[in-house]
């Protein structure tokens, strides 16, 4: 072998060794990480807080370390990826977090995939168990009775509206809204804006309309049953909103651009959730008054008499419905530090901590003792509590929840943007397609 060839050969061997060593040290580092105190995955950016939700977690993690001497590391994931990433980590037996923040509507998804640990014994033996609201426990319970998560806060859907645009209060029924909408259209304003796409549209904006119209999402076996006259009635109403330009077309697009119409007072009302106030900033009232106070913008606008709250919209003769949903904590299968995760949950389930979670997140705490705190005696919280107490309805039970809700949401968007299509035919096709796709 000549000198050049042998040098190249040695270089190749050296490069291969370097790659191998790098891989081995990576494995060792992974093992070392697994021994450290808990890792949690949330959709909250505690390292660089942008909203009151993020700030709550940042403060809580610091307080946890100070009070207990233990570390908890947060990994922030986008809200539309966190569920799939938790599931992927568990299915691939990869880097599973010790604890994960989950939203209740995805419980069916996790149960279907076997992603979460059964926490029944842990929850029922916990000192805070009897302090939880029954509806929040129900939202964490799988159809077979197992408790799969610990509820932290309980959300509600309602309406934010500009009082000067609705001087007689926000209309309770669809008929009254259409009358007001015609008036607002003459003034160059939209009556209402909302998210009219993806699962959110059904869980928050159309939920009350569906229930008050007598529409069903599913049958008792978790199969789709949404092709019914009630759903058609909702679609016809939503079609009217867009056809008459009572709502901005951007509401049909993905994302959250629909909020701008309300923030700029181009729309009189926003169909949203109790947590939405954390994102409604800055606000400009119809008279031009600006509120740029971060998460306090909504409450400041309300205190100034510019902004009001109302229960969800219904068809005449119907009762409002608000999704009985929670945001809470679950331990994924494969968690390396289950005891650490449970200890962190116990820390979070203290009255003051849960109350702070509620305030930061924009939802009522799941613990009754936390709800009794003075901070929840304001108008905003009274509205949230009243809606939850009077109008809470469980989310649809679909075997493959995410797939089913997205199929229905897409059908809604398709029917609204193509008014010539037959609603019952399209709903039936989507229903049959979903039911046939189930395993």
């Amino acid at each position, binding site marked *: *072998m*000549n000198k050049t*060839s042998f040098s*190249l*050969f040695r270089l*190749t061997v050296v*490069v*291969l060794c370097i*790659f191998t060593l790098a891989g081995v040290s990576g494995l060792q580092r992974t093992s070392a990480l697994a021994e450290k105190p808990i890792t949690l995955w949330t959709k909250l950016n505690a390292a660089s807080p942008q909203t009151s939700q993020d700030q709550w977690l940042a403060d809580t993690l610091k307080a946890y370390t100070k009070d207990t001497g233990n570390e908890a590391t947060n990994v922030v994931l986008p809200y539309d*990826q966190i*569920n*799939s990433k938790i*599931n*992927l980590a*568990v*299915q*691939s*037996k990869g880097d599973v977090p010790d604890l994960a923040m989950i939203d209740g509507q995805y419980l069916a*998804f996790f149960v*279907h*995939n*076997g*992603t979460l640990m059964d926490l029944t014994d842990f929850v029922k033996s916990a000192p805070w168990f009897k302090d939880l609201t029954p509806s929040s426990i129900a939202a964490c319970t799988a159809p077979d009775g197992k408790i799969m998560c610990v509820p932290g806060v309980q959300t509600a859907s309602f309406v934010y509206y500009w009082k000067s645009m609705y001087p007689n209060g926000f209309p309770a029924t669809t008929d009254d809204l259409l009358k007001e909408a015609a008036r607002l259209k003459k003034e160059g304003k939209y009556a209402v804006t909302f998210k009219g*796409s*993806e699962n959110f549209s059904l869980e928050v904006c159309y939920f009350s309309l569906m229930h008050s119209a007598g529409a069903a999402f599913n049958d008792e076996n978790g199969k789709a049953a949404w092709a019914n006259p009630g759903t058609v009635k909702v679609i016809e109403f939503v079609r009217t909103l867009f056809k008459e330009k009572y709502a*901005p*077309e*951007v*509401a*049909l*697009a*993905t*994302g959250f*651009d629909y909020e*701008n119409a309300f923030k*700029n007072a181009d729309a009189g009302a926003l169909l949203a959730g109790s947590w939405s106030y954390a994102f409604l900033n800055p606000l400009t009232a119809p008279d031009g008054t600006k509120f740029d106070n971060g998460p306090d913008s909504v409450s400041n606008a309300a205190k100034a008499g510019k902004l009001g709250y109302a229960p969800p919209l219904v068809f005449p003769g119907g009762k409002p419905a608000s999704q009985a949903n929670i945001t809470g904590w679950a331990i994924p*299968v*494969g968690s390396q530090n289950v005891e650490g995760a449970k200890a962190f949950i116990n820390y979070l389930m203290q009255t003051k901590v849960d109350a702070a979670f509620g305030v930061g997140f924009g939802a009522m705490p799941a613990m009754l003792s936390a709800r009794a705190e003075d901070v929840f005696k304001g108008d905003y919280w009274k509205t949230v509590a009243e809606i939850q107490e009077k109008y809470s309805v469980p989310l649809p039970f679909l075997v*493959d929840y*995410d*797939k089913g809700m*997205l*199929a229905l*949401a*897409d*059908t*809604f*968007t*398709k029917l*609204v*943007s*193509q008014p010539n299509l037959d609603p019952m035919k399209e709903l039936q*096709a989507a229903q049959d*397609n979903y039911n*046939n*796709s189930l*395993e």
Partner: protein
Amino acid sequence: MVTQPARSAVRTTTPAVARSRFNRFVPLWMLLPTLLILLALQLYPALYSVYLSFNRIQAGNLIWVGTRNYERLFRDARFIESLGTSVVFVGCYLVLTLSIGMLIAVLLNQRVKLTSLYMVLLFIPWVVSDVVAGTMWRWLFQQDYGIIQQWLNPFTNNVSLYANPTGSMIIVILASVWRALPFTSLVFLGALQTVPREVLESAAMDGASRITSFSRISFPLIRPTFIVVTIFTTIGGLNAVGLILTLTGGGPGGATQTSGVYLYKIGWQFGDFGQGAAISVVLFLINLVATLFYLQFQRERTMG
């Protein structure tokens, strides 16, 4: 009498022969790291995807289901619809990218002033990531502050284009073409520059117009490159996911949900990895058929 030394019964190798044999394997040694990486990062995942497409995953365990994922897939109207959407998207994307790319290459081949500057500007879309490009294009059509939406409002009666099924597909196609133009233009420009100038000059002296010169001389000479670019562009269009997800998320109402985007939703969002793998196998077969078709077309033209 001179005696010859006895021949050894064992055949010996001379140092020169041994060196020659070793040198023959040096290129293989040099290629070995790349081959190992290709095997680990491409071949193994591809074969595993095929295996996964015959399974279902539950709590990290694989459960053999045979062809059930494929049966469910071909019964799924949304998947069939996504194939139709892909055909529309790829068709428009291909025609626009190749025609505009070729036009730009022909113009740049004229070697006018500031050609270098034009090439730098042309390359900007190529260096921008899918997510940045998708976000940028979404902002351009945003209802309240999008520049292009504001220009179009008088003609569209203030309808937000990306909230409209047809409008959103147009935006997705335009954004994808914008991203792909640098690659196609550059490759076509390189091919055009290999066409002998003397041939073009003598054609001009014989009275051939520019269009005739291009269609009868330049294009036939660069046809192999054209076929290759067509293959790459087709595959890129069929597998496009990042830009579409950022721009429209596959919406509104599934209007821009191509098969690639549907694969992402099935596999990642719904956690049905087995069916997601089945979709990837189907897309691979479609890509393969398209590639073989183009290559066969090229072979027939060459032999004809």
